[in-house]
């Protein structure tokens, strides 16, 4: 195959607002092969009963507009196209959407907090959120997910020229929850986007953060921390699509796993299109396996279609706690269990400390401590 016949990117070519445009996944498809479809409670094949209830509460500082709107609001769905069947199902099924607007040149004085609380996991619920930062605006948005639910949603971040948005999404669901979410950011010229996904709770959580650049100069940093317990499936699928020149992206996702059938999936797709000269990208995934019986699937994909990149790289490593780390700490008198905690805390903590909202940062740190505290018999 010569250069002339080289195909465009093979990653994520499909997108549609119509559920019917996507085949019902069987589990053999590349984008579904790691996900336990049987545990999705029908979100993927149309059999989910839309009787679930997820309550949304929003707190926002003065100067920021928060609206609850109907399906026909023309601002919805402008920044993204559903990339898989569940996302299309959520787009087709939500009853009302939340639109947060940070007006031009406004710097939010406090974070916008969007709390989702699931009432029960017997029926499905759907959501849609659109966050718009007008040019030169600056804001932080915190999304929290708690309670029991079968929830599919799409979140759009429209970051205007020279605007700066920081998002923290906390998946702290109850043990029986199922959550499938697409989070898509579209960056304007010189826009900055920082995202933290923290996934701790839930039976199955599948979050797909993606970034597209509308203009040059965009800068996206995507961080993720997850702690997977026995029986849990926590999946993060990232896509950064460099379609314009001189944009930057950084991806760093780190997770810890413990106990039987804890399953972490990380997919990191980065495309540098032929037009995207001067792209600077690096993606990293690391997993710390704390016990036997866990499984990690970590798949970085970097597709480069131009020779003119400023930097492009990826790395993935999954392994047990490093004996040399433990030895060093123990050789200074620190008992094994504490040494183990220090290493795990340190490994995840490097990302946790990047969370700018102190209250959220402390909660995440406490949640990690709670995971480490779980005595084996209770796990």
């Amino acid at each position: 195959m010569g250069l002339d016949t080289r195909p465009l990117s093979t990653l994520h070519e499909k997108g549609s607002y119509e559920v019917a445009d996507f085949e019902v996944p069987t589990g053999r498809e590349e984008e579904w092969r790691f996900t336990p479809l049987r545990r999705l409670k029908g979100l993927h094949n149309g059999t989910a009963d839309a009787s679930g209830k997820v309550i949304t509460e929003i707190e926002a500082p003065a100067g920021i507009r928060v609206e609850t709107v109907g399906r026909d609001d023309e601002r919805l769905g402008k920044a993204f196209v559903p990339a898989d069947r569940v996302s299309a199902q959520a787009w087709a099924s939500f009853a009302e959407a939340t639109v947060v607007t940070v007006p031009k040149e406004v710097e939010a004085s406090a974070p916008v907090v969007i709390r989702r609380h699931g009432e029960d996991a017997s029926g499905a619920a759907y959501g849609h959120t659109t966050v718009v930062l007008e040019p030169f605006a600056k804001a932080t948005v915190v999304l929290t997910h708690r309670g029991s639910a079968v929830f599919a949603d799409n979140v759009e971040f429209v970051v205007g020229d020279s605007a700066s948005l920081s998002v923290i999404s906390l998946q702290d669901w109850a043990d029986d929850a199922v959550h499938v979410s697409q989070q898509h950011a579209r960056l304007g010229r010189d826009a900055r986007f920082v995202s933290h996904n923290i996934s701790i709770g839930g039976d199955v959580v599948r979050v797909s953060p993606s970034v597209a650049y509308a203009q040059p100069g965009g800068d996206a940093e995507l961080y993720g921390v997850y702690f997977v317990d026995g029986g849990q499936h926590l999946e993060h699928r990232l896509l950064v699509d460099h379609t314009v020149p001189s944009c930057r992206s950084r991806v760093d996702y780190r997770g810890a796993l413990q106990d039987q059938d804890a399953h972490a999936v990380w997919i990191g797709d980065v495309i540098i299109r032929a037009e995207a000269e001067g792209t600077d990208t690096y993606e990293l995934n690391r997993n710390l396996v704390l016990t036997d019986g866990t499984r990690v699937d970590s798949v970085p994909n970097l597709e480069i279609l131009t020779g003119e990149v400023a930097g492009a790289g990826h790395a993935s490593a999954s392994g047990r706690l490093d004996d040399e780390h433990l030895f060093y700490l123990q050789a200074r008198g620190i008992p094994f269990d504490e040494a183990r905690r220090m290493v795990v805390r340190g490994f995840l903590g490097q990302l946790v400390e990047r969370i700018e909202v102190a209250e959220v940062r402390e909660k995440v740190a406490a949640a990690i401590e709670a995971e480490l505290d779980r005595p084996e018999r209770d796990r």
Partner: protein
Amino acid sequence: MATLEIRDLHVSVGDGEDAKEILRGVDLTVKAGETHAIMGPNGSGKSTLAYAIAGHPKYTVTSGTVTLDGEDVLEMSVDERARAGLFLAMQYPVEVPGVSVSNFLRSAVTAVRGEAPKLREFAKETKAAMDALSIDPAFAQRSLNEGFSGGEKKRHEILQLEMLKPKVAVLDETDSGLDVDALKVVSEGINRFHDGDPETGVLLITHYTRILRYIKPDFVHVFAHGRIVEQGGPELADVLENEGYEKYVKAGA
């Protein structure tokens, strides 16, 4: 009186058929107030001795005994050995991402002393110890050993030595990779530790005689082929300086 007693110590690395004996019967006694230098060529097993005393999981003791004040060290876990009063300054201290120097020091001091030091006093103590070793206080907030130069790592090993105050310190090639200034600073730290408490012993492992200009050994042992092949006083170091290890290497080959 701190006494570290090593008797007929045999140590292997690897399992089963791949097991390779590295230490072949080491006898050594380090008493309080004494400084012993173990010198020898590369690959003679010096570092293995250090790691075996500290309990590194890579090394298996196949026979022999190690006791500290009569207590069986080989029965203890790595952290128990440290709490019993053994300290190993490592040749290659590992980087531990995300664990800050100050957090690490506090955890180690708490474990070794058996109680958490008061925050204020601990901060003062740490600062004084860092000053004495010319360590920039900003290092307290950095990840342990991460991005430290060779010399900075060694200074931090000695910082830990001075703060943990063990009974017996084993220093594994602490002098390697240091320029003269750093060597002086590090040696002074070791001397402060040793001279500050007559109940402490030092076992200094080194390839070169250079550090012995700053730290005066009472005994010098030559290590070759997994055991001590000659012992003497400080004058033995001068002989090694002039003649090298050649005759010991050949003798055992």
